[in-house]
């Protein structure tokens, strides 16, 4: 069959019609990945604007811009939005767009689940942002300690929206994690043995397992909170046998692994970007892979370091302090591997490389302040001060936002087909980098001076004024830097240089596809013989007998998880509206719960089940070939 005939046949099979129904029903991972990215970026902007409001209130002593309650709600929304609705979903966006392309598959293992997790992610965020319209947003910080969050101190809807929105988002996150696990373990191209996987897949696989085992703790904590608030139980009320520390234990058992969920995939992206722009393979591939997995595992054994001040036995504290130190070894292995790659290579100074290298620098600063706070006496000294705020922002912005920008400048040409402007990009980088350090480095000093976090104002004459002014200026400069990149994106969409298939001369399979990739991505399923399919001589496209076209339906091969020996042909479902409708009825469940319309909850539950039944009804025509 001629190549053109193959391509038109595959297009008929895989392309989503450009209709309104098609837009809502699509299960194409490329479309859904881009939606994840755009939605998460919007949450970044919302959370960023909230942080600017916070900074305006703190710019000077005794400011009256926001009331104490309004300040509490805004900084809580800032934290919750950034940590749950931006940092993890944006990495999922990259993973959903890129992973099938990186492994030579035509879609994820569960494309409809993929659509479902996108819609639930979006709707859970919408659900959270209903609360500010009642002027009752959550107001207890992103970790929402009891007893402050019990009805006696937090009446109103705010904490209910917090708990229910996190349970709702947990469904989305867990679904996406299961999808990643099965996709990575079963859909890799023939020959892509586990020792040849791109490192980004190691980090995504690790965090997917972490999500599977960590998310339930948050769900349990939020369920207990809702039961205590409205059903009269006594999980957290001490006089009736409850325990306030139960919340902290459950929350941080989830919370610290979560830090790695929003950090490890970003290191995976750096591990792909730095070798491309150092023009050589990564140094210490196996060490990076193993330390990624170990970070995920040991991440489950450090959660008490968030609770050193609550009063525990010395033994427990020592064990968790040592665990926290151990983590820094695994991160250091990765950092040294990146440095060695740059050292041994011939670095090219692109915007993406700027962001990647700067994130390593910021990560080291944040990591070192993390080692300090892992030391128990230091932790007691700086607990709940701006030192911790500085630490978390160096780790999360250095470890998530900067790699995300590196990834955007690196992969956007693949997604949109057009290059970003390098001059604007570098300007944006320098403004962001300087703004970030001006904003967050002085927080270390403020923290050591004793400024507590989460206060809505402070008295004059404590010596806090100057540094707070500097911090606020830095925050606005940082925001300006992000704005320049957004402008750059729109310029690139309108008039960017066409990217072509492989503008960076990179090594991964995703660069084998068109930019933007066709709906079926690969006309011939690629076969892999090394870690760098596009850098090595082995001819992996040669398919003269069209054995690897698979055009009898929506098909992609499945392989064994270790050696990637082909064992089966996976059928990929067609577009469906069921995921959208199921997300909407689940949205209905949570709204009804928040307002205690219990009959509506029951009705929505039945509707959800009915939609699930329609979704999964076996179809003879397509499935039994």
């Amino acid at each position, binding site marked *: 069959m001629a190549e053109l005939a193959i391509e038109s046949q595959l297009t008929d099979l895989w392309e989503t019609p450009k209709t309104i129904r098609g837009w809502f029903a699509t299960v194409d991972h490329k479309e859904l990945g881009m939606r994840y990215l755009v939605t998460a970026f919007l949450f970044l902007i919302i959370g960023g604007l909230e942080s600017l409001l916070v900074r305006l209130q703190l710019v000077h002593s005794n400011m009256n811009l926001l009331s104490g309650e309004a300040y509490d709600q805004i900084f809580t929304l800032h934290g919750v939005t950034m940590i749950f609705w931006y940092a993890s979903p944006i990495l999922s966006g990259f993973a959903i767009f890129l992973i099938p392309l990186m492994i030579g598959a035509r879609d994820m293992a569960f494309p409809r689940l993929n659509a479902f997790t996108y819609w639930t992610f979006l709707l859970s965020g919408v659900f959270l942002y209903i609360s500010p319209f009642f002027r009752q947003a959550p107001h207890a910080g992103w970790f929402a300690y009891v007893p402050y969050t019990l009805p006696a101190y937090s009446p109103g809807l705010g904490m209910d929206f917090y708990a229910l929105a996190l349970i709702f988002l947990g469904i989305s996150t867990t679904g996406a994690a299961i999808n990643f696990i099965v996709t990575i373990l079963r859909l890799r191209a023939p020959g892509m043995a586990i020792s040849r996987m791109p490192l980004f897949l190691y980090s995504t696989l690790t965090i997917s397992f972490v999500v599977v085992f960590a998310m339930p703790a948050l769900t349990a904590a939020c369920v*207990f909170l809702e*039961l205590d608030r409205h059903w009269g*139980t*006594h*999980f957290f009320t001490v006089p009736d046998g409850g325990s306030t520390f*139960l919340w902290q234990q459950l929350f941080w058992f989830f919370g610290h692994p979560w830090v790695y969920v929003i950090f490890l995939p970003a290191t995976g992206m750096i591990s792909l970007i730095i070798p491309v722009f150092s023009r050589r393979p990564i140094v210490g591939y196996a060490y990076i892979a193993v330390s990624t997995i170990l970070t995920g595992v040991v991440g489950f054994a450090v959660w008490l370091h968030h609770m050193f001040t609550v009063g525990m036995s010395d033994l427990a504290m020592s064990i968790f302090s040592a665990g926290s130190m151990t983590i820094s070894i695994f991160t250091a292995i990765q950092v040294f591997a990146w440095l060695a790659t740059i050292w041994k290579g011939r670095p090219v100074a692109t915007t993406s490389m700027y962001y990647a290298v700067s994130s390593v620098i910021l990560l080291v600063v944040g990591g070192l302040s993390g080692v300090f706070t892992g030391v128990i006496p230091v932790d007691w000294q700086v607990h709940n001060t701006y030192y911790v705020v500085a630490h978390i922002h160096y780790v999360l912005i250095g470890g998530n936002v900067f790699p995300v920008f590196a990834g955007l400048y690196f992969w956007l040409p693949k997604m949109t087909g057009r290059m970003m402007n390098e001059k604007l990009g570098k300007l944006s980088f320098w403004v962001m980098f300087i703004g970030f350090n001006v904003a967050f480095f002085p927080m270390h000093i403020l923290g050591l001076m004793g400024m507590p976090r989460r206060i809505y104002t402070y008295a004059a004459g404590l010596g806090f004024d100057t540094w707070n002014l500097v911090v606020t200026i830095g925050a606005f400069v940082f925001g300006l830097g992000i704005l320049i990149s957004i402008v750059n994106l729109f310029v690139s969409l309108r008039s960017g240089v066409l990217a072509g298939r492989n503008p960076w001369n990179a090594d991964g399979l995703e660069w084998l596809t068109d930019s933007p990739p066709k709906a079926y991505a690969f006309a011939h399923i690629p076969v892999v013989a090394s870690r760098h399919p596009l850098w090595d001589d082995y001819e992996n496209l040669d398919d003269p007998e069209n054995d690897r076209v698979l055009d009898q339906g929506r098909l992609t*091969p499945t392989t064994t998880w270790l050696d990637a020996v082909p064992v089966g*042909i996976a059928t990929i479902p067609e577009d469906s509206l069921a995921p959208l409708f199921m997300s909407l009825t689940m949205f209905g469940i949570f709204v009804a719960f928040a307002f205690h319309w219990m009959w509506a909850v029951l009705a929505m539950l039945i509707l959800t089940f009915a939609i699930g039944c329609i979704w999964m009804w*076996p179809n003879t025509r397509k499935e*039994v070939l």
Partner: protein
Amino acid sequence: MSSLVQIPPPATKLALLPIDQGRGLGAVWAVIATEATLFVCMFGAYYYLGNNKDRWALQQPPHLVYPFVLLAVLLSSSVVLHWGERQVEKERYRAGRIALWFSVLLGLTFLVLQGFEYASEWSDLTPDSNSYGSIFYTITSLHGAHVIVGVLILMYVGCQPFYGFARRSPHMPYQVASRYWHFVDAVWVFIVALLYVIPNIQRHLHVH
């Protein structure tokens, strides 16, 4: 990378491979892992709340008749369903469907009996009596909710035409549903052990 030996990829004819059936089972194992962790967190909360309390639970340890009857009901339903799964693998779909509906009946029996147990054995304790009541009812009713979901899934599979059970079906609904059902049954084993049997042993040994 030049230092690595390039091993050529396997030269299998893709078109000759069978339909993949592993994805659904892979996903249900992951669902079971995350649900099991939810129960582990609940059990953790049970022990955390009971820690350092002189006489936390009840004046009398829980009675053991109902939980063991319930255990027998659930375990026999698992046995029946496993037998049904074997029949489906041998393409005896009718026997498989009958076994599945028999498991549904046993699951419904469990729910009715658990209602009786709440009414007769636990009438003094409510979720708002104290933290023991809170965690006891939360764990057992969360498990009950899983039984309801499991029964609904089994009924759904039981209504499907036989080609849904067929060996070439990519999703293997019968096998997926039965994995989930076995998991729900296994959780009850842990509930009986941790919430019913161990308090009796502790009371017997005078450790509280």
